[in-house]
């Protein structure tokens, strides 16, 4: 074991874990105030539910030996996952690091279904999805599965995380259907500042996501780290220019979106391309996502927070461009199209299509299964009232006015308006 590697991976794990609450703020700012907590909770719930199921079963399905498509059950309940080395770090730390990826991937999907999904149905869906969609795809690419053997390049999870979540988001948005009044009323972000804050924290955490994927504190991590700084910077510049060209104003929502798209796009390429290629990749990646997002808003597809445009399209473009810009001079192993290896682009395309197909079909099946037991959507009244009150019994921005304190049984009940909001019984 190498002390420096252990230290960097400890830090990286914490950095990636921070991305999930950051995503909650990124998404939470984009919804209406009556759904702010529900949207945050969709990310927060993943920290708990996926965190636990990953240790119990998910890790084994993804990283236990097994076959080409899924791991076996030999790591069930972390059997045999101890402090012995896995590479140059303890196996247990490797498991924890990979768990943070499972958590954020599931949370990403929530952007497509905010403001309308019943929370209990969401909890069931997210837990099943992490086990039966995320874990197998992770196994294909990182657990010694068939895509790894084929030579598909995915440094930190462009296909496993972003294309996978993007495809699931598309299916989930179609199955759930559009929000009430979608296409008739304008739904505006209630707190753009949260969105920018979330995007900033995502970028910060992403250094752990990409540079940590080297699984060591080495040259490859440094390359991935630098590219994680440069590519989103280029996307941000391109996005701002596109905004200026289209409306004459550079929007903050656009800047936040551009950062995330750039991060998504550099994820598969981070440790494979040089810094100038990263800038080119980041700038190029802005264009398809920017127009996908404009086009989507004119359709009946209520992918509410544009997970498909940002993660699906951004992830696909990033994974393809990885096959273009990969350079042996930087990564020591493989060249892409620009360096005389056009076959790599084909391998990348196969990996993308496989992830899309499996994720889309699997997500459809899981949603139909959950729907048999729990209605997927909150009822129309609950949706109108807002999911914060109807699903969680609390408000993000309670004024406290008119709240009457309900005293426990046996004590005289008060008729004096309380300053505090009653906690246990929801709204008075």
């Amino acid at each position, binding site marked *: 074991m190498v002390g420096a590697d252990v230290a960097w991976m400890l830090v990286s794990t914490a950095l990636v874990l921070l991305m999930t609450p950051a995503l909650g703020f990124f998404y939470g700012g984009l919804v209406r105030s009556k759904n702010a907590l529900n949207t945050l909770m969709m990310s927060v719930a993943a920290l708990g539910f996926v965190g636990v199921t990953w240790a119990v079963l998910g890790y084994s399905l993804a990283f236990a030996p097994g076959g080409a498509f899924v791991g076996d059950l030999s790591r069930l309940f972390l059997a045999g996952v101890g402090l012995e080395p896995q590479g140059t770090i303890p196996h247990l730390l490797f498991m924890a690091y990979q768990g943070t990826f499972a958590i954020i991937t599931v949370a990403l999907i929530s952007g497509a279904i905010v403001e309308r999904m019943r929370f209990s149905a969401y909890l069931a869906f997210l837990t099943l999805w992490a086990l039966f969609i995320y874990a197998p795809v992770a196994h294909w690419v990182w657990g010694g599965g068939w895509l790894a053997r084929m030579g598909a390049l995915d440094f930190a999870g462009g296909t496993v995380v972003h294309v996978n979540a993007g495809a699931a988001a598309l299916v989930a948005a179609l199955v759930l259907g559009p929000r009430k009044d979608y296409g008739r009323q304008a739904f*505006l*972000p209630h707190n753009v500042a949260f969105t920018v804050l979330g995007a900033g924290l995502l970028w910060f955490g992403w250094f752990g996501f990409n540079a940590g994927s080297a699984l060591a504190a080495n040259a490859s991590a440094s390359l991935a780290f630098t590219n994680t700084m440069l590519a989103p910077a280029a996307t941000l510049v391109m996005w701002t220019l596109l905004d200026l060209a289209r409306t004459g104003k550079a929007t903050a929502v656009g800047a936040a979106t551009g950062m995330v798209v750039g991060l998504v796009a550099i994820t598969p390429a981070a440790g494979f391309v040089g810094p100038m290629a990263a800038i080119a990749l980041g700038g190029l990646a802005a264009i398809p996502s920017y127009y996908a997002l404009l086009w989507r808003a004119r359709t009946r597809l209520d992918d509410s927070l544009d997970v498909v445009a940002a993660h699906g399209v951004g992830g696909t473009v990033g994974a393809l461009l990885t096959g273009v810009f990969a350079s042996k001079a930087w990564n020591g192993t493989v060249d892409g199209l620009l360096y005389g290896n056009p076959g790599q682009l084909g391998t990348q395309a196969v990996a993308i299509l496989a992830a899309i197909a499996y994720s889309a079909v699997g997500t459809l099946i899981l949603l139909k299964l959950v729907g048999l037991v729990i209605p997927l959507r909150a009822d129309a009244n609950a949706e109108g009232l807002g999911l914060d009150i109807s699903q969680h019994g609390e408000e993000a921005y309670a004024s406290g006015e008119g709240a009457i304190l309900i005293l426990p049984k046996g004590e005289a009940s008060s008729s004096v308006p309380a300053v505090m909001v009653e906690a246990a019984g929801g709204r008075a």
Partner: protein
Amino acid sequence: MKLVVAVIRPEKLADVLEALFHAQVLGLTINRVQGHGGETDRVENYRGTTVKMELSEKVRVEIGVSDHFVEPTVNAIIRAARTGVVGDGKIFVMPVEKVYRIRTGEEDQAAVTPVPEEVAAGR
């Protein structure tokens, strides 16, 4: 007595207050309101969603005054709130049936006459 209700631009509120205090108009209530007064709609873009904001932010100032104070009050507001661009707002002057001052029970003219400074300071 009259009730003067003025709807003005929020960014002009400080100027209007200053002008009113200069004119010895010391009692007023304000509200933040939204309205539409024929100004050009503001266009905003959120990703692929483009919206026209039909309502703009305004401040409504309500002032109860004695009859001879109506003109100085209205003039002060007009002077301070005018920019010359559509959207400067309106002033409505309405009759008032009855006024009470809650602290003393004073009525009508006495109730809208500013309190002498020593009373206000609690001396």
